[in-house]
C-alpha cells in the first residue's frame, strides 16, 4: 500500500512544470508604444470593438520579481513608497482613478497622469513596463498567488550610517 502511495506521489511529481524563464526579451517587446486602452466608452458613429491588450507576462513569477526590482530602481517607490503611497497615491487599493486593468496601468506608466505622474514612454522598454504592471497588480492580489513571492528575493536592509573613521588611519 505504502509503495503504491509513494509511486503515485512520484507520478504526480512528473506533472510539475518548471516555469520557463525567458530572460531575453523578444525584439517585439522592446519598442515603446503608447496607448493600450481606450479612455472612454463613448465613440462617435457607434462604438467599435477594440482588441483587448493583455499583459504578456501575467502570472509569471520571474516577471513579478523583476517588476519589484524595477519599482525601486526607477524610483516608483520615491512617490508611491512600497505601494502604500506618499507623495503619490497608494497602489494598494480598490478604486483606480484611471483603471486598474493591465492595459490601463500600462497607459498610466507610458503616458503619465495629471498632477505629478511622469510619462515613462520612450525611456524604458516595453517589456519592463509590463513587468512593473505585473508587480503592481500583484500588490493587489490580482496576480496568481503562486507567482507572488511572500517576500522579496533579496534582503532590503541597508547598513546604518557608514562611519568613515578607522582608528589610526589617515585617508
Amino acid at each position, binding site marked *: 500500500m505504502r509503495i503504491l502511495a509513494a509511486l503515485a506521489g512520484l507520478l504526480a511529481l512528473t506533472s510539475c512544470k518548471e516555469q520557463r524563464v525567458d*530572460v*531575453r*526579451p523578444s525584439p517585439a517587446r*522592446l*519598442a*515603446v508604444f503608447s496607448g493600450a486602452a481606450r479612455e472612454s466608452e463613448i465613440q462617435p458613429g457607434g462604438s467599435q470593438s477594440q482588441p483587448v491588450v493583455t499583459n504578456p507576462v501575467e502570472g509569471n513569477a520571474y516577471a513579478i520579481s523583476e517588476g519589484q*526590482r524595477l519599482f525601486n*530602481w*526607477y524610483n516608483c517607490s520615491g512617490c508611491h513608497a512600497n505601494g502604500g503611497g506618499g507623495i503619490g497615491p497608494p497602489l494598494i487599493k480598490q478604486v483606480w482613478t484611471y483603471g486598474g486593468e493591465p492595459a490601463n496601468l500600462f497607459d498610466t506608466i507610458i503616458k503619465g497622469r495629471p498632477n505629478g505622474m511622469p510619462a515613462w514612454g*520612450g*525611456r*524604458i*522598454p*516595453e*517589456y*519592463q513596463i509590463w513587468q512593473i504592471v505585473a508587480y503592481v497588480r500583484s500588490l493587489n492580489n490580482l496576480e496568481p498567488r503562486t507567482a507572488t513571492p511572500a517576500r522579496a528575493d*533579496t*534582503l532590503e*536592509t*541597508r*547598513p546604518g550610517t*557608514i562611519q*568613515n573613521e*578607522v*582608528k*589610526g*588611519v*589617515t*585617508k
Partner: protein
Amino acid sequence: MKRAAWCLPLLLSACAGPQQSALDPGGSHAQGTANLWWFFSVLLGIIFLLVFGAWLVPLFRRNRGVDSQLLEQTHRPPAATEWTLAKRVGAASGVTVLILFGLLVASIVTGHAVSQPQSRANGMVVEVTGNQWWWYVRYLNDDASRIVVTANEIHIPVGRPVLIRETSNDVIHSFWVPGLQGKTDLIPSRVTTQWIEANQAGRFRGQCAEFCGLQHAHMALWVVAEPEDKFESWMNNQLKTAVPPSTPDQVQGQQIFLNHACVLCHTISGTTAAGQVAPDLSHLASRFTIAAGTLPNTKGNLAGWIGDPQAVKPGNHMATLPLRSEEVQPLVDYLESLQ
C-alpha cells in the same frame, strides 16, 4: 595510462596563473597564507609518506614461516611484545596530537597576522559594495571633493595598506582577490573589513566567492597595484568631470545615451545621467574590462554588450534597449571617449 598520470601535475600547474592564485602572493597577507599552505603541505606530505611507508614495509617483508594456519592462532605475540606494541602506538598517538596542536597554533597565528596591516600609517580606505553582479567601489576621503566612485576595478598604491570596507545591496557576496588576501563575505546591512597591501606592481584578479545568483561566475574584479605616482595620476583623472563629447558622432552618442533608459541607472558626471543602481560610467574607457571583468573593454565588445546584454550574461539586470543599429556606433564612440 602512466603518461596520463604524469600529465595531472601539469594540469595543476595551469591553475597557478600569475593573476589569480593564492600561491603566487603579491602582498604580505597573501604571503602569510601561502606560507601556511606550504607548511601544512610539506609537513603533512612527509607524515603521509612515513605512514604509508610503515604500512608497506610488512607487505614486502619476507614471510617468516606463517603460511597455512590462521594468523591469530599462530601469530599472537607474547605478552612482552604486546606491551612494546602498546607503547609504540601510544607514542605515535601522542606525536599525532602534538602535531595537530602545532598546526592549530600555526593557523591561529597566521589568521591573526593576515587580519591586520603591518602598519596603519599612510593607510587608505576603499568601500566595496556587492551588487548582482558587479562591484561598486568608492574611495573614502575626509575631503568630500576627493571621493572617487568607480566599479569593478580597484587601483591601489604599492606599499600602502588599504582597508576594504565591504557591504552588499542585495544578497551575500564574497570579496576574494587570492593574490592579495583571503575571502571576506559582503553581507547586506553589515559592514565587514579586510586589509590588503601589495608589495609589487601588477594586476590581481578577484572573483565573487559566494554563490549569489545567475551570474555569480561572471562577477569578477581587478585590483591594479601601481607605484604611488601612477596611482596619484589615476586618482586625479577619476576626480575629473567626464570629458564632454568632441566629435559630431560623440555628440550624437551622448544624446542617445541621455534619451534612453541608460540615464535612469548609470551616472556620467557633468550630464543629467545620475542613476545610482548601476556602474558609474564617467571614466568607463579608463577601465580595461566591462560587465564586471567579463569582457575586455573594446568597442566591439561594448557594442555587443549594449546590443544584447542577455546574450553575454543571461539574467543580468541591464535593460535590453530598443536601439536602432545606426545608433549603436555613435553611442559606443561616445562611451569609449570617456577616459
